[in-house]
């Protein structure tokens, strides 16, 4: 990725202001006022002292010198700086928070239309973690890079105006500072950060997987000291390597910071020398000379905060690129906005062909017909396509050939809302929201009453009273469902599916992790509850065919 590509990746995020534009503009204005206050304070103080010193040479001029104006100016700038800084921080943070929320809402809306395969690719959990880290990285784009850069440039512009009036011959010095702020510093930051970035990303991923192995593989390592010694050594080596890379990038940032200080200092230093050498006719008066040098010195305050952001620039651009790559995918199965309503809960599958990729065909000419209200047991070895069929029936994936009809309507003609109302499904991916038990159930039906919720919970054997959950329906469920065991999470998912009250219900391995007695009970309760509605029960186990109307073996 070169600089231009990096800019292209960042562009959509630069222009997306999500209603925070006014706040940020106000913050920008205040930031500039703060900087002007700072510059003004130092510049005016320098000029005032010099003027006073010149005037103080003879008693007459000293008596005539008006010290009220500059004195008041100095105090004004001091107050302006303090006040503006405070308001600026409040306003900028307000704007930034709005921006953050806006970015997440935008991304969420995009992701919500993608299939699970499009979001997570083939790497699952880590992709999502990285996605969240990337969003966090983009949070810094405005407050750390764009706003300081714009205000630095505008303030240097003001310094430029001062130069233009007093010594037009040296106008190039503030112009030079502006050039440092915009193309030079980000470009240098880009160059210094870019070469290390891939190594850092890779090093972090390697270290993470090794640490994960150390933690998760503890059962094995606990029994074999030498294997642990090997693993420990390799992991620590990865840790050292990654830390070393960080050290190099930190060093580069330090050098860049030092170079920036030297550049600003050298500008002031050069200006001093050049001003002194100017022929007396165009040389500014003493107070102006001091003021200009002091102004240039104060410029470092505007420039230094940019250094850190500049070094992080490649990382931020890479984050933007990854988010763009995910978010710019067109939703793979695209739903029609409004479609017909299926007549009943029957399913027709004709000549179905599907492959995840060219090498792993799953279905080639699969046929299945399910009557409305039929209870079907779908069996077959792991990897035989049972779960793939679920994904096709819920239209997370589209088949490469053949047709699926639900209630007489081809799946592709249904809008998403109708399809979801028609088909309730518990996939192998079970998830619980970090919220109360009741909130989790209301995901399925926002209008569900407490009785309804208690009824489905006790049906799946998750009655809060019997589980010993003192808060009942208000029991707090932790992030990702950690406070629930795998089996409990699965049963919660089944309870949600039952609340959907759909004509067709698909349950993928609903009894996984249950002991045989509970399994039999669960089957009996669910088949009774769903009497008259279509049910597809998927399991790799055998032994309870009798509870269903029909058993079908799926083997590609």
């Amino acid at each position, binding site marked *: 990725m070169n600089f231009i590509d990096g800019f292209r990746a960042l562009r959509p995020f630069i222009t997306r202001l999500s209603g925070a534009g006014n706040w940020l503009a106000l913050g920008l204005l205040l930031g500039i006022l703060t900087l002007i206050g700072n510059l003004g304070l130092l510049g005016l103080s320098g000029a005032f002292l010099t003027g006073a010193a010149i005037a103080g040479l003879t008693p007459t001029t000293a008596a005539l010198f008006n010290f009220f104006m500059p004195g008041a100016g100095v105090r004004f700038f001091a107050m302006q700086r303090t006040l503006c800084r405070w308001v600026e921080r409040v306003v900028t943070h307000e704007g930034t928070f709005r921006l953050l929320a806006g970015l997440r809402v935008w991304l969420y809306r995009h992701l919500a239309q993608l299939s699970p395969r499009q979001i997570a690719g083939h790497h699952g959990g880590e992709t999502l973690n990285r996605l969240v880290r990337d969003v966090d990285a983009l949070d810094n784009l405005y407050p750390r890079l764009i706003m300081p850069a714009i205000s630095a440039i505008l303030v240097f512009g003001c310094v430029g105006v001062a130069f233009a009036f007093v010594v037009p011959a040296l106008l190039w010095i503030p112009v030079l500072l502006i050039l440092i702020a915009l193309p030079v510093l980000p470009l240098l930051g880009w160059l210094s950060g870019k070469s290390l970035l891939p190594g850092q990303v890779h090093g972090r991923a390697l270290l993470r997987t090794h640490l994960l192995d150390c933690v998760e593989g503890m059962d094995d390592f606990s029994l074999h000291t030498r294997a642990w010694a090997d693993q420990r050594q390799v992991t620590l080596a990865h840790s050292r390597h990654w830390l070393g890379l960080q*050290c190099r990038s930190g060093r580069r940032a330090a050098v860049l910071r030092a170079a920036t200080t030297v550049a600003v200092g050298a500008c002031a230093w050069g200006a001093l020398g050049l001003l002194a050498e100017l022929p007396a006719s165009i040389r500014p008066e003493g107070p102006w000379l001091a003021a200009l040098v002091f102004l240039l010195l104060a410029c470092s305050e505007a420039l230094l905060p940019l250094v850190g952001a500049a070094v992080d620039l490649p990382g931020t651009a890479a984050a933007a690129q990854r988010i763009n790559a995910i978010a710019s995918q067109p939703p793979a199965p695209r739903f029609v906005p409004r479609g017909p309503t299926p007549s009943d809960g029957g399913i027709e599958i004709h000549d179905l062909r599907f492959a995840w990729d060219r090498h792993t065909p799953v279905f080639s000419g699969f046929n299945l017909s399910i009557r409305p209200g039929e209870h079907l047991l779908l069996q077959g070895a792991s990897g035989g396509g049972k779960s793939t069929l679920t994904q096709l029936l819920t239209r997370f994936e589209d088949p490469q050939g053949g047709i699926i009809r639900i209630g007489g309507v081809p799946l592709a003609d249904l809008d998403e809302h109708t399809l979801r109302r028609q088909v309730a499904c518990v996939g192998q991916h079970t998830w619980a929201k970090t919220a109360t038990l009741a909130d989790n159930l209301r995901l399925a039906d926002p209008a569900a009453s407490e009785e309804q919720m208690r009824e489905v919970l006790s049906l799946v054997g998750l009655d809060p009273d019997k589980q010993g959950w003192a808060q009942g329906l208000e029991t707090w469920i932790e992030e990702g469902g950690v406070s629930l065991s795998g089996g409990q999470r699965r049963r919660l998912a089944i309870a949600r599916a039952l609340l959907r009250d759909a004509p067709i219900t698909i349950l993928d391995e609903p009894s996984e992790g249950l002991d045989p007695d509970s399994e039999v009970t669960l089957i009996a309760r669910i088949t009774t509850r769903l009497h008259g509605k279509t049910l597809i029960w998927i399991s790799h186990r055998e032994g309870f065919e009798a509870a269903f109307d029909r058993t079908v073996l799926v083997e590609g």
Partner: protein
Amino acid sequence: MVAGVVQTTATILFASQLAKVLHALIIAGQPFDALQPAWWTILACIVVRALAGIVRDEAGIRISLAVRGAVRETLLDTLHRLGPAWRERQQAGSLSTALLEQVEALDGYFARYRPQQWLAILTPLMIVAALLPSSWAAASILLLTAPLIPVFMVLVGWGARQRQTEQLQALRRMSGHFLDLIRGLPSLRLLDAHMRLSDEVEKVGDEFRWRTMRVLRLAFLSGAVLEFFASIAVALSAVYFGLTLLGRLDFGLYGHPLDLELALFALLLAPEFYQPLRDLGTHYHARAEALAAAGELQTILDAESLQPAGGETRIGDGAPALTLDRITFSHRAGETVLSGCSLQVRAGEAVAIRGPSGGGKTTLLRLLLGQLRAQEGSVLINGSPIDIVDLENWRERVAWMSQHPRLMADTLAANLRVARSDAGEPELMEALAFAGLGAWFENLPDGLGTCLGEGGRQLSGGQLRRLALARVRLRRADVLLLDEPTASLDAETENWVIDRIAELRQGRTLVLLTHRAAPLRVVDRVLDLKDGSLTASDASPANQTDDLLCAWSPA
């Protein structure tokens, strides 16, 4: 530190030379040529100051690297000491977060905050020392506020802490909420709730903004106060010197006349006086972050081991006998898992234990391995109490198959050598063939070097189970502890795996946990774990077909 002092010295020298040149040019009207040495000194000061800055950063980076490396190493060793039973009680993913992110969170504190802490005191003192010989009034303008420096530090600390913790927490919760929903998207879509929740994302964002801003508005005040004093110091110096130059004030200079050089010198130093304190404020979030992380890391380092201490006794060769004698065990007070539970497994005997999930079966195995300590009762290996057994040596002789075998993100060879680190390639291939992975292995282009797990080749549930079987085969084991060895397998594969277990158990002691019927045929005895204790089962291996669920009796 030294670099910081050099930096300040360069700054002071820079101010004095700049003041000198300006004075000479403007007031004394000297030609610029005469000022060349001073002019060049200014450049030298600028460069030295920058170089000292690099050295200071470098020192901070190095300290931070050393600390993070050492902390990570200590944590790994602690985790190993605490063992897998302790790990099971931690939230999923929290330990790897601790090892990676939380150790990294120490960075800012050691690299930036701590060095700055000293400079925030030293630099102002040096500046006052530089001013004092020429003007006590200028020095006292700064010094007047100096006693307040500790107060400022507390103030900055207080404000920043409020600000940072609140902001950090808000961001973390916002990210957590977002991650939670993204993870749940497939489920949410099936429930047709995905679009409804986009409003929730917005609402949560607004709520965090509102709550955080309420605190931030106050917290920013502390920064503003510091800013105020810095500005006032500059303004006061300017006014004082200006009036003195004009002859309206006459004190604080030990009777010498004031010239522009001294006035500018003092003016240039005034903002530098407060700069380190302001820097400290900006680095303060590093401290807050590091403190939070250190607190969580400390709980790991201080965690009490759940394992028995062990001793020196080595278990004799051959398959040992295993005994649990009236064991009582609870994870937390009031949640008794085992009560008065006894088990006797003769040397070379095979025993199956059945029971509902979550009934404490795995706990039994952990007690036998010395990974958990019972509250009451004793664990005996070949008659020796586990407290005097050399645990490291004992565990080396056990082969354990977990309920959820795990693939490491490493090569196939590494995934097998977890069981035996010195196994040669022929042994690895023999184990693969034994576990029925021979044909699969033949088709791997990279052979034993094939990368598995995250980012590599994934295995199906059945293949993973076979890999676990190959690991068991590789162990130099006298005891097999198998936890649900046929979970999530279809009937055919299950029977195949059971046949292999039957082979493996020869000459070894076997304890097998299961809630399925098929594995019972390889054992000598079946026990039921109910309400925390073991009873002989009616479903003995001989009449297992009586079991309701075994209509599909294995071939």
